[in-house]
């Protein structure tokens, strides 16, 4: 596959994050290029999810700088990340269990809606037209992820693998330019993982979405990522294309223990 990877769009420089006395991240620098699939790996507690939370503005690092499309980013809140076209999924599925798949995905469009609360409540004026447009987009995502058959099913009744897919659908509904995936394949069986890999590659390929993902399945990571950054105890111990990382001494040590 020949895809064109663009310039650096997200640049993290010397990021350090502390919770009280606990150092979650120490002096980490790496960047993400446009259209690439960037994996963050590392043993449990390495700081991967913290890193993702830094990127989308949930945590604010005490030190370091973040550049988004070349501009230094000020302290920001998650909803601002959403407005900057960064969408994400969560390690522990964060959907509205009682709502249908369709409604859940519709919530992914919320930042795009212009009409206000009252108009929505009264189903009045532009709210009506707008909803139809958004529904169209949502249907395209449903078609893309092949979840037509569960459109009207409450999310809570779905098996885990499908819930993960719905979460991806919601993130995609926001038409993000960057997608953060926190362990999209955790707890899935082989077939579900294959499906998910295919969807991630398709999203990346068809919409050109930049993807940053955290994943434990090394086979998956090495297969689909363009570049991998490895964290251990909050420090960066490796960064590069999958083959480089695979042969990195420090990485092997971190995963298999010293003395190996």
């Amino acid at each position, binding site marked *: *596959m*020949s895809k064109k990877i663009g310039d650096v769009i997200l640049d993290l420089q010397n990021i350090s994050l502390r919770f009280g006395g606990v150092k979650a991240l120490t002096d980490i620098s790496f960047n993400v290029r446009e259209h690439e699939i960037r994996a963050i790996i590392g043993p449990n507690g390495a700081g991967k999810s913290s890193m993702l939370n830094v990127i989308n503005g949930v945590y604010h690092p005490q030190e370091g700088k973040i550049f988004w499309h070349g501009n230094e980013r000020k302290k920001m809140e998650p909803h601002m990340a959403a407005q900057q076209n960064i969408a994400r999924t969560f390690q522990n599925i964060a959907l509205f269990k009682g709502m249908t798949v369709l409604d859940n995905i519709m919530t992914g469009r919320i930042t795009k809606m212009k009409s206000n609360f009252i108009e929505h409540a009264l189903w009045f004026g532009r709210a009506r037209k707008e909803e139809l447009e958004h*529904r*169209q987009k949502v*249907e*395209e995502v*449903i*078609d*893309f992820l*092949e979840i*037509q*058959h569960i*459109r*009207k099913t409450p999310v809570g009744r779905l098996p885990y693998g499908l819930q993960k897919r719905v979460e991806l659908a919601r993130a995609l509904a926001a038409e993000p330019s960057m997608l953060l995936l926190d362990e999209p394949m955790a707890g899935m069986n082989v*077939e579900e993982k*294959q499906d998910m890999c295919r969807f991630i590659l*398709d999203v990346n*390929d*068809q919409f050109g979405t930049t993807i940053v993902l955290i994943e434990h399945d090394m086979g998956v990571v090495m297969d689909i990522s363009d570049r991998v950054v490895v964290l251990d105890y909050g420090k960066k111990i490796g960064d590069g294309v999958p083959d480089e990382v695979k042969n990195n001494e420090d990485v092997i040590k971190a995963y298999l223990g010293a003395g190996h």
Partner: protein
Amino acid sequence: MPGQANFASVDGLHTFPRLLLNHAKTRPAAPAMREKYLGIWQTWSWADVNERVRALACGLASLGFKRGDNLAIIGDNRPHLYMMMTAAQCLGGVPVPLYQDAVAAEMLFVLQDASIRFAVVEDQEQVDKMLEVMGEVGTLEHVIYDDPRGMRHYTQPFLHDIHELMEMGRIHDRNHPDFLNTEIEKGHYDDVSVMLYTSGTTGKPKGVCQTHAAFIAAAQGGVQVDKLGADGDILSYLPMAWVGDHLFSYAQALVAGFTINCPESGETVMTDLREIGPTCYFAPPRVFESLLTSVMIRMEDAGKFKQKMFHHFMAVAKRCGADILDGKSVGFGDRLQYWLGNLLVYGPLRNVLGMSRIKVAYTAGAAIGPELFRFYRSMGINLKQFYGQTETCAYVCLQPDGQIKFDSVGQPAPGVEIKIADNGEVLVKGPMLLKEYYKRPDATAESLNADGYFMTGDAGFLDEDGHLKIIDRAKDVGKLSNGAMFAPNYIENKLKFFQHIKEVVCFGHDRDMVCAFVNIDVGAVGNWAERRGIAYSGYADLAGKPEVLELIRECVEQINADLVHDTMVADSQIHRFLVLHKELDPDDDELTRTRKVRRNFVAEKYKVLIDALYSGKSNQFIETEVKFEDGRRGKVSADLKIIDAKTFPIVKKAA
């Protein structure tokens, strides 16, 4: 055989392209096809369909498709694929639909046998299969795909987007405006209209060549008997390669002019069924069975009151529902109860099943359990059986309204002659017989006897009212070692009616007793197990649970008790059985693509198990290779327990 079709009523419209032209001319705005796309039903009128077929045909012609070429069609039921069939026929070509869920290697034989030059496929998945076998199918020149998703990086010049093909065709049509009409004019009713490959229960698949005349005759007969009008709707969801789908969704739709509706995807069929509410619906017994199973499972989750109401009114329906549907006289009390039941139970249930508007529902392809059949009819759904083979356009016997018998497949359809051979085999003759097997004159000669009757290979007899009863495949009917008749299908079908049992294979020919393999229905048994707090990790684990084995034993013994009363088969009680550790699967060649058991193959593959059944062992270890959907292989193993079932003393005929 050609020329016997009743063409008077369609007035010179003796090929499918002419039928399409006629609909487009006489009722251009009426809906011809619907497909759900992005959550909304899109409609094509007959005029739209005609325009597209024209464009497709001209497009094919400009790529070099010629009279006599075969066109492979592979994919789920999509309007464009149906249109492609007519497009090929316009040019005097022959559409060859293939089973879309087959892996590339399985398609290879048909593609080679039919010397395919052009293939029309649904999507990337099927394109990949074509690319995989391209080297081995030397004749394959062009592959046309319907859904462009994921095709961006395919640059091969022989791949064409169907919309590009239509554009090419429109240009061609503009430059040669008379071309297509002349081609359509050249079409003759005696030309082969379609080639359907037999599923191959035995040996390699054979291409059955059917003429326009044959399929039009079969469609006309069916439309007449069941009074199908142009205002009908049918849900087209069964494989296009199956003769039943070709008869209903293609031939009948073009003859009667009703609308075909293509579901969004395989998984949404149930929802789509409810949204469309078809007037005519057909499904193999398996589908009706799983519908009933899902209703029963959900009923068990309902509240006490609802359950009580459901069971009460189902009993009423069982008593008098079928008679009311047949127009027989029923007492006032029962009528009142049934009316109430219709209001409270049957009506809503029909609605849930998407059968509120059903005028007639068909089942065929395998024998249907009488209980199952009765259930649908008693609910007011005019379910009928019909009988036929690929070689007879699935058109031999139909059940006329008011004369439905649960255990027969009905009377010979208009224009069809039936004879029973001395060995009990059913022989048929009529306008719907195959022209030939493709490139297999030997097989063609073998299938027809000296008088021109087609030998169906089914054993059966005509009852006193002239209704045909099918017992089993003629070659499957065997004898126990004491000489008693052994009809495995008959017993298997009885067992399969239990919601917990999905598949059964019985053995007994030349043996002193009948033994069986059982597949549990993982949905129904899983639910049953959950309710009882039995934990299990997968099919194999669930199938081995002692509680489950006990459950199945009860089913088997119930059947044994039942069989005693029927002198013909009283000796066929099941003495011993086991529950298989894996589901029989077409991917492992154990079932055909239409999901019929390949009896001999299964017997061969699980020989150890059969030996264990007959040698009196109480358990047997087995390891089996399985193929996963993605083509990888794995192994499952289990130590299977063999269960003895209680049998009942045979009541000798009282003098």
